[in-house]
């Protein structure tokens, strides 16, 4: 399974038409995600001006290698299958 090895570059994307804001992903990935008042995922941590950071517009949200295993689990457990993790380890090798 190529998906098992640590990814050099992992990015999280959300299918916003499928997402219902259940908040399971933010529970499993507190170091990557938080939720807005309606339960929809947002990047964790405040932005430069102290307000919540917006979701990256194109490439998805970078996930640190230490969090990749948790991110895979969050993808698996999303009740709406709305979460996706893109891992680009192969392209760099």
């Amino acid at each position, binding site marked *: 399974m190529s998906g098992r090895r640590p990814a050099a570059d992992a990015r999280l994307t959300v299918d916003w038409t*499928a997402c*219902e804001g*259940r*908040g*399971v992903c933010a*529970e*499993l990935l507190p170091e990557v995600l938080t939720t*807005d*008042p*309606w*339960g*929809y995922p*947002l990047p964790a941590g405040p932005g430069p001006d102290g*307000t*919540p*950071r*917006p*979701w990256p517009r194109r490439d998805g949200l970078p996930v640190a290698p230490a969090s990749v295993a948790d991110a895979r689990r969050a993808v*698996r*457990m999303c*009740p*709406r*299958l709305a979460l996706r993790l893109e891992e680009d380890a192969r392209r760099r090798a």
Partner: protein
Amino acid sequence: MDLIAASPLWVLARATGVVLLVLLTLVLSLGVATSAGLRLARVPRFAVQLLHRDAALLALALLVVHVGTVVADGYVDVGPLAALVPFTSGYAPVWVGLGALALDLLLALVVTSLLRARLGQRAWRAVHLLAYATWPLAVVHGLGAGTDGTSPWLLGLDAACAALLLAALGVRTATRAARRAEADATAPRRPLTPAGAPR
């Protein structure tokens, strides 16, 4: 004690049937809680979801014991095929058949859930709604096929299980109604900015 000495397999078959009644009720109630995105007290949603999954897998394992002991014991005429193919049993074909149907449905539920990411959400959900048919089938099977089916203590347990399930369904309905009311109340007053914009 004499009874256990006489037929330990039969006793085990009955016991697993009773435990399965409780376990399947828990599985369905936890599933209802999962579908509402409910947290149980302080238990986070993902934990409710994992409990639902693990309880379902445990139920399937117990079901193997339940069916295996009935078939192996030979006290009643239920062949290995009759446990899987509905209404082919020599003993109580209708009641055992309902159990076989429940077993087939549970198998479908577990297999499609393990393959959910490959199947896609829509197909998985269409199959998963069969859970609401599986539970009544299993309960009616227990009423008719079991030798304890109509004893007061088992009827009491049936009632308690039904009450738990109804409570879970009630909480889900109430939660959804409350969320809709909140969304209706807050939507017009909030500006249409991206989620998480400063408020």
